[in-house]
């Protein structure tokens, strides 16, 4: 059994070393690939160890620099945080292998692996930190890496997308920083466990609600909720397949994680005010996302809009705030990361084999590559929520929880959006796989069939992720159980606070 200090530090140590060594070997791409893969596997391994350590419901915490809890920076892992780190590790390895084949356009750039590890570093740090200012720093690390990855190709479309993506995200994080400043001003602390203790005792609860709404705007913009999602469909489709897959898997989910974390730990007192706002946001996010997808014929743009649409479901937990709903949200995040990243990876294969991302130029792929069709249907139908795939259980839990709590409109729009999602997925199926192949379309398929090494590197992660989707669907019990316990743990904040503040709890109380 490793000490919590090591368990909590290893998941960020591997990406940090990955960044450092990739920078050292910046001119040698073969070495970089090797380093990046080792670091990703290291992240996955340490995430597994961390998840095993918190599986029984313990909360691990460590103080950096040995400063006592409210004064130094702390790292905390409860079941939710550990699960998110684990899923980040799985994605790091899957997309890392997929990206090995020189699929980055144009030609694998010298900075790709460095920025990739930087992105993982920022994401993992954001999941583990227990300090709100430190969260801002991880956000920025994640952002600057994603800026770099997006603009890596330097094509006209990417530069255009970069302008919008960078501007809107910088505004959102600066707004987050201002909110952190205000929060510090009224509480005098930045430690999240300490904040959870102090915020309910404040006299001016109106100010606390104001801060809650400001955090909702700052994190909501990261999570791409209505009406703050514009940066996402403007940018995602311009990046190459592995980059957009890792973006789709992790970036918005960090925003969702931050919303769930702050609204269960810090602002659980004023659910009466923020609850209806979040409910409206969730409904509009689901509906606008799915309608936006219906308008497009580029696979990447359809899938990008579906990211937005699915974020709405993840907010159910905050609206309903029962253990079932919060657990459902957690299950939804986990399921969605796997399925959505897999769909983008498959889109990359469709582009390779079919020669385009544009549905109008595709066709006949089911005749030439029937296995790819099956691989596409698994995540596609899971995204729409068909049983017995992972999407069914996650949709079922959040919708049941909202019905139990009497949120009829929320549940109804969840069901309706599920149907419309199915429509979009069938559109991709019909256009890319089912309809007759366009003239001269078989040449790229032959190229794809001939390149065995690329095929292996691109299909291994897709098959593995599809297997995880099937596993969550067919053996749902342990996953649902884990999410439910993680949800209950989020709503009962005393374990988190005790783990962080611990022995110095009374001392801090004595000297206000």
């Amino acid at each position, binding site marked *: 059994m490793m000490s919590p200090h090591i368990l909590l530090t290893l998941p960020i140590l591997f990406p940090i070393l990955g960044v450092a060594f990739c920078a050292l070997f910046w001119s040698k791409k073969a070495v970089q690939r090797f380093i990046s893969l080792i670091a990703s596997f290291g992240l996955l391994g340490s995430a597994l160890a961390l998840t095993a350590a918190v599986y029984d419901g313990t909360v691990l915490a460590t103080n950096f620099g040995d400063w006592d809890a409210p004064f130094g920076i702390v790292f905390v892992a409860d079941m939710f945080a550990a699960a998110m780190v684990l899923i980040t590790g799985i994605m790091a390895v899957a997309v890392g292998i997929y990206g090995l084949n020189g699929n980055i356009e144009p030609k694998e750039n010298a900075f790709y692996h460095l920025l990739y590890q930087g992105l993982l570093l920022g994401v993992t740090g954001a999941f583990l930190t227990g300090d709100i*200012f430190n969260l*801002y*720093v991880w956000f*920025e690390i994640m*952002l*600057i890496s994603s*800026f*770099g990855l997006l*603009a890596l190709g*330097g094509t*006209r*479309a*990417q*530069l*255009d*997308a*970069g*302008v*919008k993506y*960078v*501007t809107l995200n*910088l*505004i959102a994080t*600066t707004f987050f*920083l*201002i909110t*952190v*400043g*205000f929060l*510090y*001003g009224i509480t005098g602390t930045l430690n999240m466990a300490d904040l959870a203790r102090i915020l309910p005792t404040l006299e001016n609860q109106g100010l606390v609600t104001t801060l809650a709404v400001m955090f909702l705007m700052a994190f909501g913009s990261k999570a791409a909720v209505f009406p703050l999602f514009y940066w996402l*469909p*403007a*940018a995602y*489709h*311009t990046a190459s397949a592995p980059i957009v897959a890792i973006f789709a898997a992790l970036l918005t989910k960090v925003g969702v994680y931050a919303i769930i974390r702050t609204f269960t730990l810090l602002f659980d007192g004023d659910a009466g005010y923020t609850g209806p706002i979040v409910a409206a946001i969730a409904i509009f996010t689901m509906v606008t996302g799915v309608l936006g997808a219906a*308008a497009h014929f580029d696979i990447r743009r359809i899938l990008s809009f579906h990211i937005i649409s699915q974020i709405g479901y993840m907010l159910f937990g905050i609206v309903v705030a029962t253990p079932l709903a919060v657990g459902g949200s957690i299950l939804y995040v986990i399921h969605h990361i796997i399925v959505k990243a897999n769909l983008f990876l498959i889109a990359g294969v469709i582009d390779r084999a079919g020669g385009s991302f544009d549905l109008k130029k595709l066709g006949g792929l089911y005749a030439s590559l029937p296995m790819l069709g099956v691989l596409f249907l698994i995540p596609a139908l899971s995204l729409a929520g068909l049983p017995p795939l992972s999407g069914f259980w996650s949709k079922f839990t959040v919708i049941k929880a909202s019905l139990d709590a009497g949120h009829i409109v929320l549940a109804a729009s969840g069901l309706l959006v599920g149907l419309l999602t199915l429509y979009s997925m069938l559109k991709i199926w019909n256009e890319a796989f089912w309809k007759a192949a366009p003239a001269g379309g078989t040449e790229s398929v032959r190229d794809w069939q001939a390149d065995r090494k690329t095929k292996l590197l691109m299909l291994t992660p897709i098959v593995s992720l599809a297997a995880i989707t099937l596993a969550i669907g067919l053996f749902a019990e342990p996953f649902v159980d884990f999410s439910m316990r993680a949800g209950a743990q989020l709503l009962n904040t005393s374990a988190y606070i005790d783990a962080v503040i611990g022995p110095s709890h009374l001392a801090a109380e004595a000297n206000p």
Partner: protein
Amino acid sequence: MEPVFAIVFGVMVAVAAYLLMSRNVLRIVLGLLVLGNAANLSIFIAGRLDSRAPPLVPVGETVLVGGANPLPQALILTAIVISFALVAFTVVLFQSAHRRLATLDADAMREAEPELQTTAGPMKSRRAEEPA
């Protein structure tokens, strides 16, 4: 002192908002700079401005008495470094976007999201009245 700083903060946010709403990407960069500095100022005010003594603990003591709050200074230092790096990146990105797309108008940059055929009508007319 706090009310004065609070008003300055508000004015800076207003200036930043005005600049950010511009279509000219140069003004957008300036807006981001001003907004970043406004954020730093807000942290500074949040730490209270009641002392001008340097936050040093005298020899033999273990507790800081009457010094300025050192935490906001540490936070702002971090934030300044981050915002400097991000703005530097933004300037380079906007500059290369300007070079490749030959425009400084954010609305005219439609490379990533070309106008859909179905909605070409109203979009076209807006493009016609673009400033030179």
